[in-house]
């Protein structure tokens, strides 16, 4: 049993509105994620997925409970984490290469090494030759790939992704899923990936964490024992259908209980 890379225990998050009303976003989340895993978190809109991700990232504090990264409590953003949002958030005045180099610049990493890393990462995400292009010259999928390269430049062990392909069309999305699995396999990172697409969640993951509706609780964690490397054809297989159905039923059941 490998030691958990990130460990969440009894996590709760409650928002206080201006009228002093309490809005529970997350309740009693317990989760262990191991190094090298690909975990997807799936849930309906508003169930607290993004809140959970932001807490894991150290961007917002939790109301109670603990989050540990490599055994140490998370109390702020960490250099060991890379984040990809749904919006690539590229700086339009910088070239692709300099966008990828942004974290290296902020963290004051060594310039020449970072430059070499950046070029390597652009090759990894399939954007070789685009270093000097500007964001407005790229398609949505390409911009998101730049964002992925940027999230990896400072060599974090953990990659947090919040519905990164949500704004892309269906075919590009499928392609990006394949690309992401390739990048994951080649880089050996741990990935936590948020989505509200059940097929995407099952296709990508080693384990699928199903969050209930607000306040988000871990309803169940489904282990996906499909062989790797996976291609899109696997989505037509019976085993895939079983997993997808299982996850989907967790939603339907929950909807009735509410």
């Amino acid at each position, binding site marked *: 049993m490998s030691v958990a890379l990130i460990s969440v225990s009894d996590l709760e998050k409650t928002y206080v509105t201006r009228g002093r009303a309490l809005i529970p976003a997350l309740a009693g989340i317990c989760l262990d994620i191991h190094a090298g895993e690909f975990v997807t978190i799936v849930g309906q809109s508003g169930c607290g997925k993004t809140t959970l991700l932001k807490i894991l*990232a150290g961007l917002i504090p939790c109301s109670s409970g603990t989050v540990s990264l490599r055994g140490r409590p998370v109390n*702020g*953003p960490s*250099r060991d*984490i890379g984040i990809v949002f749904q919006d690539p*958030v590229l*700086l339009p*005045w910088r070239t692709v290469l300099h966008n990828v180099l*942004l974290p290296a610049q*902020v963290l004051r990493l060594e310039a020449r090494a970072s430059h070499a890393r950046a070029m390597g990462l652009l090759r990894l995400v399939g954007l070789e030759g685009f270093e000097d292009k500007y964001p407005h010259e790229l398609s949505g999928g390409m911009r998101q790939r730049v964002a992925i390269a940027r999230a990896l430049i400072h060599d974090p062990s953990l990659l947090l992704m919040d519905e990164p392909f949500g704004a892309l069309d269906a075919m590009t999305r499928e392609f990006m899923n394949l690309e992401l699995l390739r990048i994951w396999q080649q880089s050996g990172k741990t990935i936590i990936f948020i989505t509200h697409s059940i097929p995407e969640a099952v296709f990508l993951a080693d384990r699928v964490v199903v969050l209930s509706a607000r306040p988000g609780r871990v309803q169940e964690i489904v282990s996906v024992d499909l062989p790797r490397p996976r291609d899109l054809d696997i989505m037509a297989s019976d085993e895939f259908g079983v997993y997808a159905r299982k996850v989907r039923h967790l939603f339907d059941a929950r909807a009735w209980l509410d």
Partner: protein
Amino acid sequence: MARDLWREFADDPTYFVRTRPQIVLIPAVFVLFIGLWEWVVRQWDVPAFIAPAPTAVTRSLVGGIRSGVYLEHFWVTLGEALAGFGIAAVTGVALGAIIAQSRLLERTVYPYLVALQTLPKIAIAPLIIVWAGFGLSSKVIIAALVAFFPVLVNVIVGLKTIDQSKLELMHSLRASRWQIFRLVTFPNALPFVFAGLDIAIVFSVLGAIVGEFVGAQRGLGNLILQFNVTLDIAGVFAVLILLAVLGIALHLIMQAIQRRVIFWAQPEDVIGA
């Protein structure tokens, strides 16, 4: 942009003109208007001090330029405007950056800024002349005063208009306040800054002229007053044309600089902008 238009024209001139009739119509209107004006003046013997004929204006313009008189005053006004603009731009950006750092400071200072901005600065031009004399410096001060506020206000707005996701990105990297300002907030504000500078450059010419109206020995504004007194209205019109040229030229230069610096924020397909 212009190169693409030229290529389009060279490919098929007739089609180009047919789909863009304004290319022909705009100069046509101008020629028609000037022609009509000339004819009206001649036909009804309109006195020269009311409406000089375009030919008279042209004569004055050409003569004045050839003799060097107009150009001498032109450089004076241009110099005053540019100096005032330079001061306004630097102080506007610097002060705007400082004010935008602190919410409290901004909220305290803002009412004063609004009050000073709405105060017609040209009303204190006579006061500036009293304080700074008839020389160039008083004009520069007035030009700077008039140009300062558009820059300041736009810088503040630009520095505040930063979208959350960019800030979140920097926060996730534990960036320092200075890093956030230098790498994200300030570049992001540049389109606003340039909008302010664009207004400011035209205002600085305005300020210089007003200063010259109130008290000057040289400059295009001063020239207009001289011509007014001698009822050389053709001369006045000639100077007005020079001023129009000055304003347009400065604006075009500003636009060209803007296009290079904030290359990412250009509107696409703006024809004839």
